[in-house]
């Protein structure tokens, strides 16, 4: 008798979750003109997303990141790669009058080989980025519908009364307009493609839950009117803030945490096992938005004169309905029908999206503080340079020297420890973050705080500079 379960006859791979295979897939995906370094401060090409791909082979994504590694460069890099991979699921076409359609890059963006590589790498990157949630957020015991409702009501009323960290950061910033613009940018990875992750659940067969979710999707898409589509409203917000509205024009300025949040919503919609987590996450998002959008709009209006806040007003209004609709037509029937599994996952998703939203606001607050301290860190260089250089000469501090030509851009990145940048000759525009630069001349420099997004652009014909790994600036002052 032939054994009909004798199927395998492997020629190259036994397991498509194999980490070596996934690593190969990441490098192959990133090895593209769409991802190579290029000297644009902002993305000028519709399909390009900078991944600093030449660095990827040195990063290790095989051990899941822990909470205290979430702001590391490896996590930033994984977030960028994963974000770029997810978007190959969505149709993106340049739609504005001034935007050129680059046929070659369009084909490259959706190339079957890259899509296949992405399919192999995504579960691996998701595991690397999101495993920490399982340890950070523990959900257990016996969840019933009345308990879920009790808990959600309790947490949401607490949260509605608390002040958003992002608005606090904008109001406290030395440059509230820039901080306000920066916050709009951090919302962009999600809002410019708003409801694309959600629409992944527009397909399938799962009874009236599908219909209920579709009702929300209809509103998100502007119930058939392009001008009322939520992403269109957000494009108008960006325009009114003197910002470009093309998706990912500001790719390089997305913070680690902003990407983590938008990737999370992609993860729980792409992998259908997470449907119930999604229901909890979207319930939190729809409800928290009612008061969150009010707070953001009030602060942003003050910091950016003439801001079009219709996007935020729309959400203060329609999310009252969305919150109620998700509770009665998704949360409740899902728990009634699918029991414990649904209830546990719904609570988990609710807490996860809450946690990640708060994390993003905290990271933003730190980034604004870092940009505001540009002058302080510029001066700090002068105070500590001699001591650092002496230790470096003695081999006690790691130092690396670079010589770069005019116009060369160091794509934004972050370091895991504090660094000191010192200019030996030439001039560098040090990019402290979105819309904030410090001009560094020969003999000058700047302290670079660990985990903070920054970049550099060479202004002189050539610039020779040294990066000293000082680990913790506090040791030196």
């Amino acid at each position, binding site marked *: 008798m032939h054994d009909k379960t004798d199927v395998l006859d492997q020629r190259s791979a036994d397991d498509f979750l194999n980490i070596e295979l996934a690593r190969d897939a990441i490098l192959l995906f990133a090895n593209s003109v769409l991802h190579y370094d290029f000297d644009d401060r902002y993305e000028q090409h519709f399909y390009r997303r900078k991944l600093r791909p030449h660095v990827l082979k040195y990063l290790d994504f095989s051990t899941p990141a822990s909470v205290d590694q979430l702001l590391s460069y490896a996590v930033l890099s994984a977030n960028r790669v994963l974000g770029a991979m997810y978007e190959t699921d969505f149709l993106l076409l340049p739609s504005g009058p001034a935007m050129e359609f680059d046929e070659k890059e369009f084909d490259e963006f959706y190339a079957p080989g890259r899509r296949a590589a992405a399919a192999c790498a995504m579960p691996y990157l998701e595991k690397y980025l999101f495993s920490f949630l399982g*340890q*950070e957020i523990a959900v*257990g015991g016996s969840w019933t519908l009345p308990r879920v409702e009790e808990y959600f009501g309790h947490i949401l009323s607490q949260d509605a009364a608390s002040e958003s960290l992002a608005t606090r950061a904008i109001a406290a910033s030395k440059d509230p307009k820039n901080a306000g613009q920066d916050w709009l940018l951090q919302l962009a990875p999600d809002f410019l493609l708003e409801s694309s992750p959600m629409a992944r659940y527009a397909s399938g067969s799962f009874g009236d839950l599908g219909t209920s979710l579709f009702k929300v999707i209809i509103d998100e898409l502007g119930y058939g009117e392009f001008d009322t589509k939520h992403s269109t409203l957000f494009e108008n917000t960006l325009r009114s803030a003197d910002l470009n509205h093309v998706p990912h024009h500001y790719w390089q300025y997305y913070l680690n945490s902003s990407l983590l949040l938008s990737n999370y919503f992609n993860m729980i919609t792409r992998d259908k096992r997470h449907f119930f987590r999604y229901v909890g996450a979207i319930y939190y998002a729809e409800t928290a938005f009612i008061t969150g959008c009010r707070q953001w709009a009030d602060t942003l209006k003050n910091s950016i004169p003439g801001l079009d806040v219709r996007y935020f007003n729309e959400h203060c209004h329609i999310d009252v309905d969305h919150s109620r609709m998700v509770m009665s037509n998704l949360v409740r029937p899902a728990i009634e029908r699918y029991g414990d599994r649904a209830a546990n996952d719904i609570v988990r998703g609710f807490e996860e999206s809450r946690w990640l939203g708060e994390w993003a606001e905290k990271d933003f607050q730190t980034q604004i503080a870092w940009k505001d301290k540009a002058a302080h860190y510029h001066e700090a260089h002068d105070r500590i340079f001699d001591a650092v250089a002496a230790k470096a000469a003695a081999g006690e501090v790691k130092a690396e020297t670079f010589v770069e030509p005019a116009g060369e851009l160091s794509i934004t990145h972050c370091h895991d420890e504090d660094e000191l940048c010192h200019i030996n000759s030439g001039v560098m525009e040090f990019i402290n973050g979105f819309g904030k630069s410090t001009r560094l001349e020969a003999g000058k420099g700047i302290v670079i705080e660990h985990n903070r997004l920054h970049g550099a652009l060479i202004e002189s014909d050539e610039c020779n500079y040294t990066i000293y790994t000082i680990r913790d600036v506090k040791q030196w002052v």
Partner: protein
Amino acid sequence: MGVKSLTGDPSAGWIVAIPATRERVYIDVSERGEVRVLNDKCRHRGGPLHLCQVDQEGRLRCPWHGRELKKPRPSKALAVVAIASKNIVHFVRETAESSPDVWPVKQVVRMQRPGSISPKSAMPGRQVPN
């Protein structure tokens, strides 16, 4: 009140007493995010199982009459959410509108796990003879 939020030592355990149903529940959360919600009453005479000690063979024994606790019984009395980096634990019950819903929560030393202390390293004073 249906939700109680406590900040405290995440490596501790908690006891929740529910007078309405005469239940007593033991809760803890492991470093890996696993939640245990257990009936704290010994099957025999209701002894406090969270005070179980580990004997020389690594078995859990009830402090009252020393019977072995083979398999702790899960309790459905409440639900739990814990956020590790914030050291916060939420205990959740439905609000019973008809009854005054009183259910005190108390932090206790974490319950030992069977075999968690090897007989040699166990403190001699805490061992219960077979």
